[in-house]
């Protein structure tokens, strides 16, 4: 998943970026409103973390301009201001949730996960697909109630596909949302991850968990069984 972080305080920005990368996010970090707006317009962002008090262009203006440019990715507002007037203004401008500084990193991570899930149309952290169960909160994956060990990259690929179950996802899209820009797009590392995921989730090769659509991409093919399926 690709996160856009717009925060002018250097230390906080670096800490946020480091922690988010550790959690498996691809991070685009901007130091002011103008740069942030540019990143938000140009990169395939999945979720934004935007501070309200920014130099050059205020956070509220960045959110407004992103929304009017048709960008619909969820946005978590960071604000040092505690007044409801500020919170409501941010939400009204197009923010989806807010967090008042100082905040705990765990809280921020939980909010981001919830926003990503919600934007994909899921209302619960636990996603069930027959024998396959993915908990986006704890990042656990189970097959027939047995935990499965996945590497960080394998989990990222799976989560991206699962949140968009039923949709065809191109290899380019997967790469963009899972790797930094400088990643070599021609490599077949995605195919390798998908192959490993197939072996781990479907050892007997009966479920056809991830379909390959030649020339188009991949699709997570299992039907959701939890009530909270995609809307």
């Amino acid at each position, binding site marked *: 998943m690709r996160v856009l972080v717009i925060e002018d305080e250097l230390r906080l920005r670096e800490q946020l970026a480091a922690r988010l990368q550790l959690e498996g996010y691809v991070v685009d970090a901007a130091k002011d409103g103008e740069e942030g707006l540019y990143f938000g317009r140009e990169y395939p962002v999945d979720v934004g973390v935007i501070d309200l008090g920014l130099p050059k262009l205020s956070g509220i203006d960045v959110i407004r301009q992103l929304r009017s440019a048709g960008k619909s990715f969820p946005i978590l507002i960071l604000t040092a201001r505690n*007044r409801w007037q500020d*919170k*409501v203004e941010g*939400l*009204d401008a197009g923010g*989806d949730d807010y967090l008042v500084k100082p905040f705990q990193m765990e809280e921020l991570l939980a909010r981001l996960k919830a926003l990503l899930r*919600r934007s994909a149309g899921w*209302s619960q952290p636990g996603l069930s697909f027959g024998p396959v169960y993915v908990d986006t909160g704890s990042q656990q994956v189970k097959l027939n109630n047995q935990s499965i060990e996945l590497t960080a990259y394998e989990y990222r690929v799976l989560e991206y596909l699962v949140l968009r179950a039923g949709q065809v996802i191109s290899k380019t899209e997967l790469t963009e949302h899972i790797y930094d820009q400088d990643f070599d797009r021609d490599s077949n590392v995605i195919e390798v991850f998908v192959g490993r995921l197939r072996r781990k989730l479907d050892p007997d090769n009966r479920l056809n968990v991830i379909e390959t659509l030649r020339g188009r991409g991949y699709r997570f093919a299992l039907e959701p069984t939890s009530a909270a399926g995609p809307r």
Partner: protein
Amino acid sequence: MLSLNARVLIAASAVLSSFFGLAGFTLDRTYHKSADGALVERLQDHVYALIAAASMDESGRLSIPAALPDQRFSDAQSGLFAQVTRNDGGWIWHSQSTEGLDIPFSQGLSRQDSVMRDITLADGRQLRLYSYGVVWSDTEAQDPSLAYTFSVAKDMADLNAELATFRRSLWGSLGGVALMLLAVQGTILRWGLAPLRRAENELAAIESGQQPRLKGKYPPELRGLTGNLNALLSHQQEHLERYRRTLGDLAHSLKTPLAVLQSAAESAQDSRELQVVVKEQVARMNQLTGYQLQRAATSGWTVLAAPVDVRAISQKVLAGLRKVYAEKAVAAELVEGEVAVFHGDEGDLMEVVGNLVDNAFKWCDHRVRIRIESRTIPKSEAVDLFILVEDDGPGVAPDMVRYVMQRGRRADSHTPGHGIGLSIVRDIVQLYGGSLEIGNSELGGAAVHVWLPARPKDLPMLQGA
């Protein structure tokens, strides 16, 4: 910018000068015309008198007596001249006064023809000439030997002198009256604007710290302004007071966690222990600053503020919270009674509604109900605001209710997370002289009633509002 005094005086001067100018011009014209008419009439009378004095002798020659009825024809200095000529040029008579002068009288006029003209003599004198044609016969025949032209001339100096005298006295008196009117106007203005000058002096005294508010008695037209100014001043003073108090409280209460941090930094055995202490104290300091700064930001009664639309504010808050709590799929309804307005600060109202509704969303199972209503208080015409926020959650624990409701209790330390919202609401409501009650809702959870009175008695209403 021009002073009020100068504005009124300039306008009055312009009006007065154009009025008197026009009046003077009209009077002057009229007088000139009538003086001119009188001169013409006099000249005609002189001609008729000459005709009456003339007689035809037996030989058919006209004769003018040497002693004319008007003595001035004989006096060279009189400025009155006469000439009679026969139209065939064979006979001419001059009055004695024309001796030595060459006056170009008209000649050869037919019966009853007349000519009037003004001429200037070589010596600069202006004369008005009047000539009239007469035929000394009863027949209609035009025999030039019987036709005469009677002419009279008069020096214009008298008329001009008379006109000049009139003009002098006219413009002199008009100017005098105008000046007097301006002076009266200036005096009235000074008297009328005296209260404003007094207010200015009082403001200067307030600025220099000699007095805290406007004290003088002011006319009804200014009372709205001075009353609101006083209210604004005391509002500002209260605000400053509160800032000072809050900053004092804040500085004081931050010292404790800072001391804990310092001693931990000096004595903690390992980084893990330090981490725990830092986390704890940062949370505490965060709560302290949040609460105290919130208190300082609370505005209280505002003067000269437009009423706040409670419904619009509530809808904004609801729309925001629906996003934040999207996963909970809360069924929230906004019930509106009579038109709900609030005569306070918009930010304060948003704080009250935001905190209450946020709590309701947080603790509800799936239902939240907000009721806003303005109620007119009998006999006082004041309109109070009532807000009720209900949910179907577990309700507020009696301990928490007691804790929040304790008067004067500051919820700034060790208050469990959600209590702080209610404490903030309580503080704001208290500042407005209203009340906060926490009870049970028929929905099954908490019901929080807020009453915000219309406006305290010592705050003046806007005049005419």
